[in-house]
């Protein structure tokens, strides 16, 4: 610690250069914080205590392939299965194609499988009694200013009605509230409509469902139940794949994009550039201080002390910028979630991200400092003082 003032003073010897380098490091770690939140958000999708009891069954070929509705009764007969429900993707947009709404056509017992979604008894009954009724998540309702009693038009990006129009109308009969905001934020975005109304209105469905959700009585039986469900359709034209909710979500996400790979690739490029940039800063900083480092060695600082001081300077630069960048990310992430109107439900920059971030700061700091530190350590005092 007694060398800290010396290291600090050396770091800010050229203030402009150091500040510009710090800004780059802050930007890199801000990006890291944001992208890591996105990655964590995708990884956490489907992870919940209730989710562990749920199995999702979809087509083995692709998630856009549908399955016969008749499977529900057979699945319900499998020992260990408590409830089977199903849903279809509706693909609705409100007013503008950019205002995509997570809209699903669902079976009457759909909400029985999701105890983490709360809706009042009266609203639930109203939904059951209204053919064109819809239950909407509270965040979604807030986003578009909807309330119970409103009739709202949705345009399906996929399904027309029997007249060929893709414009559908729904009566909002209730508001959904997720009871676990950490894992259930998605439900606050949902728009649920009746599968029966959907199936009877569009000519393109004909008794098909997009996926089944099964609630098992015992989590330890989930694997056996999944195999039993898939065996129902074995060697048919609609073979299924049943997975836990978490695995199914991960698999679905992976069909959209490998978020981990994308985030990793972006961060790899960012940090590689950062290594070049801060490495260049450190090389210049040490080259400019050749005679000063020689003086330190002259008055008795050992070569190892000089090596350690240059490395410490480099690590300090990275830690300073990295901590500021991640702190900024901690502020920006909730703002991004807020501005997205609930479309993005990013987790706060947590201990894992901080831990990984600090490791990156230390490793990059050591990597960029190593070469100039070695040069400083090997510095020949006589040559350096003579300006050779």
């Amino acid at each position, binding site marked *: 610690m007694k060398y800290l003032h010396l290291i600090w*003073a050396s770091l800010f010897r050229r203030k402009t250069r150091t500040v510009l380098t710090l800004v780059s490091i802050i930007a890199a770690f801000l990006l890291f914080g944001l992208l890591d939140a996105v990655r964590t958000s995708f990884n956490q999708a489907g992870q919940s205590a209730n989710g562990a009891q749920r199995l999702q069954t979809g087509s083995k070929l692709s998630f856009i392939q549908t399955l016969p509705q008749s499977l529900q009764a057979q699945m319900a007969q499998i020992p260990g299965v408590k409830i089977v429900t199903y849903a279809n993707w509706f693909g609705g947009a409100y007013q503008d194609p950019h205002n995509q709404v997570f809209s699903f056509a669902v079976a009457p017992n759909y909400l029985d499988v999701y105890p983490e979604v709360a809706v009042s008894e009266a609203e639930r009954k109203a939904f059951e009694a209204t053919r064109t009724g819809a239950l909407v998540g509270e965040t979604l309702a807030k986003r578009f200013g909807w309330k119970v009693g409103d009739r709202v038009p949705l345009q399906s990006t996929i399904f027309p009605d029997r007249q060929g129009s893709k414009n559908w109308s729904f009566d909002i009969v209730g508001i959904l509230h997720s009871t676990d905001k950490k894992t259930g934020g998605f439900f606050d975005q949902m728009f649920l409509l009746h599968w029966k109304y959907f199936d009877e209105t569009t000519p393109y469905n004909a008794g098909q469902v997009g996926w089944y959700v099964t609630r098992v009585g015992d989590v330890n039986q989930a694997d056996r139940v999944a195999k039993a469900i898939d065996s129902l359709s074995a060697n048919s034209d609609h073979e299924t794949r049943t997975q836990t909710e978490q695995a199914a979500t991960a698999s679905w996400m992976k069909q959209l994009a490998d978020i981990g790979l994308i985030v990793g690739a972006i961060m790899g490029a960012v940090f590689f550039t950062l290594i070049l940039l801060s490495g260049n800063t450190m090389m210049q900083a040490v080259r400019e201080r050749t005679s000063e480092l020689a003086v330190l060695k002259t008055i008795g600082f050992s070569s190892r002390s000089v090596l350690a001081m240059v490395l410490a300077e480099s690590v300090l630069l990275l830690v300073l910028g990295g901590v500021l960048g991640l702190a900024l990310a901690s502020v920006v992430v909730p703002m991004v979630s807020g501005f997205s109107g609930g479309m993005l439900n990013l987790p706060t920059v947590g201990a894992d991200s901080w831990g990984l971030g600090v490791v990156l700061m230390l490793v990059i700091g050591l990597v960029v400092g190593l070469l100039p530190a070695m040069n400083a350590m090997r510095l020949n*005092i006589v040559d350096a003082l003579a300006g050779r």
Partner: protein
Amino acid sequence: MGKLIEIRDLSKVYVRGKQKVEVLHHIDLDVNEGDFLALMGPSGSGKTTLLNLIGGLDVPSGGSITVGGQRIDQLGAGALAKWRAANVGFVFQFYNLMPMLSAQRNVELPLLLTRLSAAERRKRAAIALQLVGLADRAAHKPGELSGGQQQRVSIARAIVSDPKLLVCDEPTGDLDRQSAEEVLALLGALNRDHGKTVLMVTHDPKAASSARHTVHLDKGTLVEQVAA
């Protein structure tokens, strides 16, 4: 007074590419404790090389150097660094202060290698600055000081850890006459009043006249030793 420095058959050869340049040839020299010795000679005569060897900044190619009873030519790099920290104070022609540190912090630098507390380091640095007449400039950075003041700060840095030996390479070479005289007077006082042994390389006969003895080098050989 006993001998502080004993140099025997000292040689130094530099290898520059394929060429070998013998800078010092079989030098024998004794310096008594408490002496003030000026090393003079033309450029390239080996004065600075000899000073660097005595200060433990370089290692000889042959012969021996004993300082205060210690064969420094036999020390490894780490031990030599420790020996320098404990035994030698250095004063350079261009002061070589850390531009980003205050005078006080510059003077404290050698004390960072000791186990002294921060308060004790500050106190000793303040005393050293007082001794060179710059107590009121402690908070100033080198860029805010004149050349003469900077050289006095560098002398304070050289004496702060109370070494026996002060090694000065052209300490007045970058100063005007008045500042040079102040610096020489200061070195003289440190030698006379505080018992520091001073070795000073200089081109300036007037500076050399401040010393008690003068040694002349020419082409790496000791040619003349003159008492003041």
